[in-house]
């Protein structure tokens, strides 16, 4: 299989086209602008539409309009732009419209900077906009996975009629790695009979996002709840790396951090530590059960993130107090090093020895 060296943002953009995305609406922001630039060239070649909107707010509402017609559609941004899109994402979730929203996140809060960070975890996994809704969140960890998870993102969006977020960061978007372009096999989906295209000879159809009767709105919220449960049952994904059966310590990290933690697992072997890494591939739904099972085996957990401690809350929910959960984070665009994490592990193990 031929391997092509590609930049993360461009690989994601090409994967979107391969997945059948023909509409993209966006607004420039570092470190994801290459997605827009690539699609502005490529989409017209395949008969698609690239439109640079006047704002993130307009872009997400253009996504809403195109998705209403049944098209596969995407927008991308980074932290500050995703904040502006949150209103629209809430409406997309309410109208049950599929779409893919990419966040190549950067340091925050506010304008922050343009270095990689994972500080949008809460925003991505807790909904982010108003109302009781969820979006699926996929967390790629390599350029190859930017490709495979982009395919899966479009599939899951259509499967659930729900927005899907891809949460990367400036590192993944900007780095170059070899990619193979083998076909991605995904189950087929029913036609979008709900899409509005003009009523033609048939009955009129609506795309709505309002229900004034509280009983009816509760019923609708219950319907969404059922959908979110189904996501957890059928589409939770994670990877285990390193010692599976009898680890001394469980590491948990996603995306860019998981790459670093793989090196930590290998380096730890030299210290005589049997380390295990659990890497959530889906952040929502979160792999609570696998985290609990691995934490029980390990007896101690270290969560590493590029934030002040966000996913660690989900890990603690999964562990349910059955093992101590430690945290190590770097913020503001700083990236944790292998040595820093090894030192933290040494401190944890030594601290326990002293008890």
């Amino acid at each position: 299989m031929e391997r092509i060296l590609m930049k993360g943002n461009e690989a994601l953009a090409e994967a979107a086209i391969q997945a059948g995305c023909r509409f993209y609406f966006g607004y420039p922001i570092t470190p994801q602008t290459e997605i827009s630039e690539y699609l502005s060239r490529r989409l017209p070649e395949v008969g698609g539409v690239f439109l640079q909107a006047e704002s993130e707010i307009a872009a997400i509402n253009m996504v809403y309009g195109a998705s209403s017609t049944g098209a596969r559609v995407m927008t991308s941004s980074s932290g500050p732009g995703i904040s502006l899109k949150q209103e629209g994402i809430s409406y997309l979730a309410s109208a049950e419209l599929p779409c893919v929203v990419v966040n190549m996140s950067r340091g925050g809060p506010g304008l922050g900077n343009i270095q990689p960070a994972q500080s949008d975890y809460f925003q991505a996994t807790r909904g982010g906009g108003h109302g009781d809704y969820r979006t699926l969140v996929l967390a790629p960890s390599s350029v190859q996975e930017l490709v495979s998870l982009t395919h899966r993102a479009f599939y899951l969006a259509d499967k659930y009629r729900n927005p899907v977020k891809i949460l990367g960061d400036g590192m993944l978007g900007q780095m170059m790695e070899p990619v193979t372009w083998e076909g991605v096999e995904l189950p087929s989906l029913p036609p979008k009979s709900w899409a509005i295209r003009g009523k033609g000879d048939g009955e009129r159809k609506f795309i709505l996002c309002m229900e004034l009767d509280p009983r009816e709105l509760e019923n609708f919220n219950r319907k969404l709840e059922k959908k979110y449960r189904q996501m957890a049952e059928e589409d939770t994904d994670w990877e285990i790396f390193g010692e599976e059966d009898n680890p001394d310590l469980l590491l948990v990290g996603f995306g860019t951090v998981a790459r670093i933690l793989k090196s930590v697992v290998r380096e730890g072997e030299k210290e005589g530590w049997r380390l295990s890494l659990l890497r959530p591939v889906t952040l929502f739904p979160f792999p609570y059960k696998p985290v609990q099972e691995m934490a029980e085996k390990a007896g101690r957990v270290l969560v590493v993130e590029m934030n002040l401690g966000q996913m660690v809350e989900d890990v603690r929910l999964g562990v349910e107090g059955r093992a101590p959960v430690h945290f190590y984070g770097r913020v503001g665009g700083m990236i944790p090093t292998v040595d820093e994490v090894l030192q933290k592990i040494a401190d944890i193990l030594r601290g326990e020895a002293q008890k």
Partner: protein
Amino acid sequence: MRTIFERPKTLIDKPFTYCPGCHHGLAQRLIAEVIDELGIAEKTIGVGPVGCSVYIYEFFDLDFVMGAHGRAPAVATGVKRSLPDQVVFSYQGDGDIAAIGTAEIVHCANRGELITSFFVNNAVFGMTGGQMAPTTLPGQKTTTSPLGRNTEVQGFPFKLGEMLAQADGSAYIARVALTNPRLISQAKRCIKKAFLTQIEKKGFALVEILSPCPTNWGMTPQEAVRWVEEKMIPYFPLGEIKVKESGSHAS
């Protein structure tokens, strides 16, 4: 016997839910009549607002999309770019289009988006109970300008039609009122031209429709009609503001 007047086919047989004396119903009936006359119901998609006419989809026998407050022009852009052969119209009030959604309508017009936009201007936020809108007249009392709009503090009424006419992408901009049969006939001609502007791919089209709001103005329907004629029309003059006669907008 010959039928000389009937309900437009595009209008569902269901009473409008607007307040007595409001002109939303009249405006929507005219839009339905034009859609019937152009024979485009099968291929027309409406995009509704947030405001008094949030239930607009209930009244039209058309496919309809309900979007977020002020974002109808962006939603309509997404629909039209996906379905370029269909007819797409948006329908918004003054709070929706001229306050929270100003950026979306300006850029939609400037792109020459091939949609038809209807803008109902009643000089207040209606659904939330009569607050000051960008189109509230100087001195006009509302629940958030209880002493009357003071232009030194609250600025001036927003002439959206004139502003959008400046955009190179707009092809047809008109302002109409529905306070007497002559003006209603004129309005219908403008509504038809606005649809034809889209169908003939000339560019963006907008019709601003001045409407009374007796409930929030604290007037009888008759008094409110007179107020439109005596107060609103002098500030918001009627007529075709921009008519681009020929040529495609495409570069």
